[in-house]
Each structure stands twice: as C-alpha cells, then as structure tokens.
C-alpha cells in the first residue's frame, strides 16, 4: 500500500478515535450536583399512604422507611398503612390472629391504582412521572418537593373523646389560602399503632409472630374517597365539618390517631392539598 493510500485508509479511523475520545472526555469536566441535607420548614403537612399486607414480605422495609421519614419530618408528614389487596388477604396468607383490612382500604387500593411492586406508597395522591404508586426510593423526594409548596388550605382538628362511651367527636376546621376551583373533599381516617400480630418480613428472615404494626387504618369517618364539602374555595373562606364515631371494642384508643386531609378532585386528578393529625385520646 502506498503512503498516500495508507493515509487515506487510516484517516477515517483516526478521526473516529478523536471523536470517541471527545465523547469519553466530555464527561470528565462537569459541575456535579451538590447534595445538601434537607431541613423542612413551613406548615405544609404531606400525606403518605403506604399499601401493605401481613403476607407482603417486602413491606416491612416500607414501614421502616415510613418511620424514618416521620422522624425526619415530624411536623410535615402524616402516614397511614393500608392493609389491602392480595398480600393482606388472610385467605391466601393466614398469618396471625387479625384481619387488618378495611372496606375503605380495599376501595382505595383500586381508586389509587394497584401497586406494581412492594413496598409501595402514594404521596399526597400526586403522580410522579405519571405514576401515582411510588416505590420506596421515591417517597423522600416526593415528600420534600411537596413540603416546599405552601398549602392552599390550612387545617386544624378539634376532637373530644369520652372514654366511658368510647365515642369520639371530630371537628375539622379549614381556611382557604388560595383560590381553588373544583370539588374539595374532606377525608378523615382513624389509625392505630402498636397492634401485635404476625408479619412476613424478608429482612427478618421470614414470619415474625410478634411484629408491631403501626399506623394501621381502622376506619374512616367520611366516605372512602372523601366527602364533598365545597365546590371551590376563595382566600379567607372557612369551613367546619363535624363527625362522630364509637370506637370498636378491640381498638386501643391511646394508640390511635386522627388524620384529616383535603383534596381537590378534578376528574382523575385528586391531589391532597393539606393534612393534619392529632392523637385520638388525651
């Protein structure tokens, strides 16, 4: 091969090599994203609904992450664990003594779409990249994003509980901070922690007979998808709704919480605007 032909043959290879090198080296110089620890502020309280079941071996990991997040955001996060779906069904997972499912939980798991995998949770009923059911890794970022948005409605809960009659009366007061159009719904949940029963736990090596279940949905004082209280709200407009319930004998009032939240329903979108929580008993 003549020198000129060699040059002609190798020039494209040389050019390609330079191009490849550019592609490789272009990643060497970049301004990386610096990670700053997130310190929550403001009064936006975010709702995390975790879907779980006693037969769900991966779910306790989600419950541990839920406690982790509550520790980090004590004033900005409320959480509920809904035992619903296949893994909560004692027909297929006859574990322990209690059936922790509720009619409301079974309705909500379909309303919010079935989880693709477990652990799975919904943050403020708001999709992330088109998915409303989020994997465990996505909860923290979804919560921190939501916390930074000032709430459109502020909520407060007033409750009275009579230990003798086991009746609780809950009043939820709210005030609009922004103009909103659409159906505003109020949901009130009763949760209980400290329920000792069996649970399949992959990280613990299998079935744990004395697992402590927390934030378990026991009942709702409103319809499952919320009670329609307003068709839109304006700045400064207030509302007040009162509900009452007599607790079941098996529930331990001292371990129960009341969670209230409002959502804005527009067709298939129903983001939670604000949440609040109080202990049920003094």
């Amino acid at each position: 091969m003549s020198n000129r032909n060699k040059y002609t043959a190798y020039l494209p290879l040389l050019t390609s090599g330079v191009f490849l090198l550019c592609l490789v080296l272009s990643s060497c110089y970049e301004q990386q994203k610096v990670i700053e620890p997130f310190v929550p502020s403001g009064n936006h309280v975010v709702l995390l609904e975790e879907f779980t079941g006693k037969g769900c071996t991966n779910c306790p990991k989600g419950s541990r992450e839920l406690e982790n997040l509550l520790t980090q955001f004590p004033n900005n996060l409320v959480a509920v664990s809904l035992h619903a779906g296949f893994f909560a069904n004692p027909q297929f997972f006859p574990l322990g003594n209690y059936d922790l499912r509720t009619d409301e939980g079974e309705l909500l798991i379909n309303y919010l779409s079935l989880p693709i995998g477990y652990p799975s949770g919904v943050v403020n009923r708001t999709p992330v990249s088109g998915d409303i059911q989020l994997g465990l890794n996505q909860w923290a970022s979804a919560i921190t994003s939501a916390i930074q948005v000032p709430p459109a409605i502020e909520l407060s809960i007033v409750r009275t509980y009579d230990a003798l009659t086991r009746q609780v009366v809950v009043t939820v007061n709210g005030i609009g901070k922004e103009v909103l159009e659409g159906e505003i719904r109020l949901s009130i949940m009763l949760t209980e922690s400290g329920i000792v029963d069996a649970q399949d736990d992959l990280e613990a090596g299998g079935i744990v007979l004395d697992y402590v279940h927390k934030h378990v949905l026991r009942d709702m004082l409103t319809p499952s998808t919320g009670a329609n209280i307003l068709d839109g709200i304006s700045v400064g407009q207030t509302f007040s709704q009162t509900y009452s319930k007599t607790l079941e004998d098996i529930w331990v009032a001292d371990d129960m919480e009341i969670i209230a939240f409002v959502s804005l329903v527009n067709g298939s979108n129903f983001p939670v605007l604000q949440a609040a929580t109080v202990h049920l008993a003094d």
Partner: protein
Amino acid sequence: MLLYRILTLVVFSTLSSLVYSQEQLSLSGSLDNNTYFYIYDDKIVPPGIPQYERQQIGLDTWLSLRAQIAGFDFGMRYDIFENSALLNPTDSYTAQGIGRWYAGKKIGKLSLLGGYIYDQFGSGIIFRAYEERPQLIDNALVGLKLNYQLTPNWTLKGIAGRQKDLFGLYESVLTGTNIDGFVTVGKKDKISIAPGFGVIHKTLSDDQMEALAGTLAQYTPEDFIDSVPYNTVAMSVYNTLSAGRFSWYAEGAYKTEEVIFDNYATSTLWTGVKSVGKFNLTDGYVFYTTLSYAGGGLGISGQYKRTSNFNFRADPFVTGNRGMINFLPPMSRVNTYRLTSRYAPATQELDEQALQLDVRYAISKNLSILVNYAHITRPEAETHSNIYDEVFTQFTLKKPKKWTMISGVQYQRYDQELYQGKAGAPIVKAITPYIDFLYKFDQKKSLRTEVQYMATKQDYGSWIYGLAEFSISPHWLFELSDMYNIAPSVKEDGKKGEKLHYPTAGVVYSSGSTRYSLRYVKQVEGVVCSGGICRLEPAFSGVKLNISANF
C-alpha cells in the same frame, strides 16, 4: 398526536411522489396479536386481579407496516394494550398508539435512520435497544442513528436520543458511538479478528437530578453522598478472534461513577434501624469472554463473566425490566422444556461471577450427546453467594425420516430467596429427567410426545408433565398437555399442598405465513425469563388466542 398526523402525511406524500417516479415500491407488514379470555379458578388464581374479577378479556397487539422505495425505508408500528397483564401481572394496563416509527436512507457510504431505533454495541453490555414482547421490554432509542462505512471492513456508528418508556420517553439523553472492524491476518487469511470499541454517554435531566437529590438529601451521615454527577460514560472494547476451528470472543466494559440503587447494601435510618437497599455512588465493570471449538463432530464452548455494579438505566428510580440501557448476557442454558425451564436464573447486575461449559459430540449421524454445566456466584456477598448450579445432559437418537428421540437429565440448585425474593425459601434442588419422542407416520402426519418429571422437596414439590402434539402438515397441529403437582411439598403451616392439575389443550392452524392458535390453559405461577431478564408471573386460567401474520 399532531406530530404523528404530520409525520403520516409526510410519509405518504413522499411515497406517492416516489411511486409516480416509477421506482418500485415494496410494502410489507406483520401482525402479532394475543387475546386472553380469563376464567377464574379460585384454586390457582389469587383474588383481586381485575381481569378475572370484572374485565374478562385482555388484548396485546402489534401491527407493523413497512415501505421501501428508491433507497428510502419507512416503517410504523401500532401497539394496542387493552386490559393487558404485561406491564403489571396483578393489574391491567390499557393504552394504544404508535409504538414505533422510523425513516431511513442510504446515501453513499452514509446510512441514516431517524425515529425508534433498535441496535447494540458489541454484545450489548453497554448498549442494547431491543424489544422482548412477552416481558413488555421495548427500550428503543428514539432519535437518530448514523452509520458510516469507513472502509469495506470498518464501520463507524453514532446514535443520539432518548429511550422509549411505554408511549413516552425517559428524560435522560443518550449519545454514543461505536466502531467495528474486520481484519484477516496470516497466510491464506486463516486467522481473522473483528475488533470493536463503543462508548455511551448518559446525561440525567434536571428533573431527574432534583428527584434524586431529594432522596439523597434524607440519608444519614453514614450513607450521605456529597455530590452526584449528571453524566455517566460507559465504554467497552471487544474482539472476536477466529482461527481455524477456534473462536474466541472477549469484551471488557467500564462505567464511570453514577448513583445506582444497590438492593443489598445496608443503610442506617434516622430511627437507628438498619435497612437493606440504598443508593450508592460507584463505578462498575463487566468482563465477558467465550471460547469455542467446533470440528470433527465435537463442539466445545466455555463462557466466563464477571459483573460488578453494572446497573445502567435511563432513570435511577426504575427497577426490574424498566429503563435498561444495556443487556448483560445470561450465563445459563436457555431451556425449552416446561419443567427444565421452571427455575431460570435472572442476570445479576450488581455482583455476579458465572461460568458455563457446553460440550456436544456427534457420535454418528444419528446419535449425539450434549453436556452443559453452569455455575453462578456472587463473590462480594456475605450471604447468598453461591446462587445457581446446573448440569444438563441430552442424548439425541434418530432414525432418519422415521423418529427422533431426545432424552436426558437436568440437575439444578437454585437460590429461590435471592432470585424470587421469597423470604426464608430454601434452596431449590431439583432433578428432572425428560424424554421427547417425535414419530413420523408419513410425510404429513407426526406425533410428538414429551414426558418430564421434576423431583424436588422445595417450593411446590415434585411435578410430572406430559405432552402430546399431533401434527398434520402443513396446516394443523393439535396439542394436549398436563402439568401435575404429583408430590406437593409441606407448607409453612405444616399442611401439604394440594395436588392440582394444570392442563392445556390447543389447536394451531397455519397457512402460509399466517398462524392461528387457540389454547385452553391453566398455568401455575412461576418466573418467566428471556435472555436473563425475568419476572414473576401469577397463575393463569382461561383461553389464549394468538394470531400472527407476515404480509
């Protein structure tokens, strides 16, 4: 939608003008349709699956059309998913639209292709865009591909775009280039090498980075990551050396640091509790090689692969078979019989060392033997380190034009807890003898029977499987089979499982390149794998109709 209408208009206008230029237009297409009629069986199907509860019928369809004229190549594929179980086996997925389109042209040494692109670099370790319909894997690169013929033996390829995500796109941007060559050396060109080098560059979007930062910002000091790169580069160098009867392929790949999710890493929560699974900032590598010899009736093939932290996805939050940019070669045999394929090991992206040896020998024209051995470990793991072993033997004996018998035994050792996430599940050890007998009555009629027995005390216990397939060439095939849980294992509650039958009956009609299949199926839950990518499938009960056609 508007973009698709404009595109369709442009495509058909171009076609029309080209037709008038008297160039020959070639049109072709294909149809792949699966329709499922769900029949609930409370013994095998878990409750809560919407297809069984209320939807009753599900559908997956891919309709492709292609037009070629005057060097132009256009294509389009329409995808339909109605109450489909492909995305989530316990839920239904309904969507339809243009799943693929492309337009290409060759101009001298340059070939260009725009649209949805399927391609790979080397064996796919750093980049592979492909589709696998039974698993709903379709990670086409949506963008542009340029191929330049540097010399008759050297090709340079460049790609740029974003990865497909169902009917949308992942936000990260992918660019890459690949050079392949072929060189003969030595006297009479008996030795050849086919070297190549590829590089893929991934850039996360600002939104992806904000989501990732939001998650990492919550980590405790023990697990905290100070900074995260937007860009990741994966590069590989590979070569095939062919010398006489020997062939040796080797590929080494390296990926620069990026944040990936490690399923097995331990993290410390703010509650003080330890949890498993966290994001890690790490680089990764893969080394893969195969050496084979073929000649004199003997074929020997050995493979070795070492993988470390080579999770490479279009989005850091996706898992399973979503968002994969690359493809790691599976290191176990692809088994085709019902029971021998029941436990297939999924490729491990984070930590895997695997060895496979395959020896085939044709004793005569009518008798051959095969022995295959696979061994897979996780060298960096403290537990679940020895995860898969398989010994597979096969004898093939035939009487030409009369009958063929294939028989053998398989031994498997399968870490079910690791591969399927079943807490506390013991290692499955199974021995499966099998026999497959094909008898030709005449040139048109034949009968194929299979019998397999899986002996194991773990998981569901032992199984027996029988199949009879009667074929009337060229059109008809009738099938009847049953998979029977002949010796169920003892469950955790101390009770023995129920002995259940899982029958299948079907008929297939073929005419030319069109195939119709109708089958009544009861199928036990299990893992469905394709190329090392696996997913758990729940049990199925109902009727499956499949129509596939090429035109």
